[in-house]
């Protein structure tokens, strides 16, 4: 059991998400940075699908009621056990009664805490991921608060030795990752030529309205070509007949919003492109006021990037010792 003493800013239980329900409005949820989530699990011997705690901007304070093996990855939140700093991207043994205390993120936005055995909260639609908007999954469908008690599953029999680490070359430098690649498309033809070009050249900054649903960015105004609006679309040039929104898609009410793991699944704003699957986790580590640049790529480049990212994760796992 893990007893939460302080929940941090926005900490939720997440796994690799739920599928098969997007058509009735249920987004995947799941870890925003699945690379950090997967390696946290690997360090403690869990399957990649095991549930971890995702912490945003500020970590939790929590006490372990039993001996456990843990790993903290993702954003650096300076974790300590009983006041002593512990390594991140590292398998760490804790004893019953030990207190884990985490601070504010100094680099990146989201950290992951994996515990050998995984967090054994009930599954909802085959996933332990928290989706707070309607209050399902995770711990009572909400962010963690003081007093919450999280059960831990059975410890895996095979796992890396305590002290095993992810080598530095596989640890992302979040501060440097300001460019995310996008495949333009869907309704990008409705943008003015200037706005379409500017989308992939302007400096965007992450606004405080950036969460698991979407990242609202600030930057130059984005303009659509004026037209006679089609029947059913609504009156604003940015409106379309309500349609499905891909996870990672960029919509532009005026400024861009990139939809993330708790995406609204559809609506009436024109979508103009999609952040590629390999780069959504990089965007998820951008902090408020950080810069973001969009780089246009074609779909085959996006597929190559996905493969490269998978190979890097495999190599990181293989290098853990």
């Amino acid at each position: 059991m893990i007893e939460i003493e302080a929940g941090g800013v926005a900490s939720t239980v997440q796994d690799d998400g739920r599928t098969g329900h997007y058509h009735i409005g249920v987004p995947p949820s799941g870890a925003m940075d699945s690379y950090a989530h997967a390696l946290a699990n690997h360090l403690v011997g869990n399957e990649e699908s095991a549930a971890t705690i995702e912490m945003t901007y500020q970590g939790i304070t929590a006490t372990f009621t039993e001996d456990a093996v843990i790993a903290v990855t993702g954003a650096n939140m300076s974790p300590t056990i009983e006041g002593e700093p512990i390594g991140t991207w590292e398998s760490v043994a804790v004893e019953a009664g030990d207190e884990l205390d985490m601070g504010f993120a100094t680099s990146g936005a989201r950290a992951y805490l994996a515990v050998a055995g995984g967090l054994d909260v009930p599954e909802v639609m085959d996933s332990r991921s928290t989706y707070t908007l309607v209050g399902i999954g995770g711990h009572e469908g909400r962010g963690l608060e003081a007093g919450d008690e999280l059960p831990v599953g059975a410890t895996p029999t095979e796992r890396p030795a305590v002290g095993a680490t992810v080598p530095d070359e596989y640890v992302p430098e979040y501060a440097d990752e300001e460019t995310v690649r996008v495949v333009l498309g869907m309704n990008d033809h409705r943008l003015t030529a200037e706005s379409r070009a500017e989308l992939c050249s302007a400096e965007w900054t992450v606004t405080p309205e950036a969460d698991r649903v979407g990242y609202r960015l600030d930057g130059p105004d984005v303009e659509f070509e004026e037209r006679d609006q089609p029947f059913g679309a609504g009156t604003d040039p940015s409106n379309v007949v309500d349609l499905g929104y891909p996870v990672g898609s960029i919509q532009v009410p005026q400024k861009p919003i990139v939809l993330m793991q708790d995406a609204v699944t559809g609506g009436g704003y024109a979508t103009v492109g999609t952040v590629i699957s390999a780069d959504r986790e990089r965007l998820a580590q951008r902090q408020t006021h950080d810069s973001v640049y969009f780089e246009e790529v074609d779909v085959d480049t996006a597929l190559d990037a996905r493969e490269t990212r998978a190979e890097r994760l495999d190599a990181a796992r293989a290098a853990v010792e």
Partner: protein
Amino acid sequence: MASERITPVDLPDPRYEYGGDDHVFVDLAEEMSFTANFKAMAITQRVAERDIDGVVENCPGNASYMLRIDPDVVHPDDVIAELKDIEASIDVAEYAWESRVIDVPVLFEDPWTHETLMDFRDRHQDPDATDLEYSAELNGYDDVESFIDAFVGAPHMVTMVGFVPGLPWCFQMVPRERQLEVPKYVEPRTATPSRAVGFGGAFSVVYPVAGAGGYQLYGRTPVEVLDVDQELPAFEDSMVLPNPGDIINYRRIDRDEYDAIRDEVEAGTYEYDMADVTFSPEEFFEAPNEYNAQLLEAVA
């Protein structure tokens, strides 16, 4: 009215678009029509039947559809090729699907949505009218009563579900000339009561949960479209009630009936008035009024 029919519209060639490396988005038309929606329904149903490797989400939209794919299993171009093959092979007129007619009682001009809409007059096109007064005038109705009569006068088909879990976009099952159309709020509201019944563009919606929203607010239903705890009998199989292709019959009720139904819903005992039907686009197009009446007998 008896001679009314719905003329299928000519759709442009579909636009096959990538949503990054892991989604395919297909635009069937820029404007809303039953022709476009039924095509989206027919294609996504055929996608489900073919059980295409690597397709992980299959989402019909109002006049479009979207698939999420696993690019580790299948290349988006191979999915698009299969979708083009399906598109060439279907004839919507020959299609039919299993649907449900669902009775959705509505208290129009209820106190809760009224309070909300009055709170946000500064974000509305017409700060001096209610949303119903504004919509009635814009659509050429003499008064709110006759506008509500039109709204409940024919059923609405669920042409898409989403935004949040369980929110149905519904398109009224009448010829284009009689379809209602209203803009969304100039600036979205930051609050909407749960179970609010609204209208925006050409779509009626039921808000499953309280939250932001931009649709004109007309009333509130005592029944749920989302039950995350699945306590009500109608939610035994899914926490979401409406599915694409379902038919919603909005029925005007008074405050007493609202309260009585709400008590049953809160007690977890409410039995939805709904029935399985087979929906035929062709029969609907030929004689919508007669066909609607026949469909509604199932919940009469």
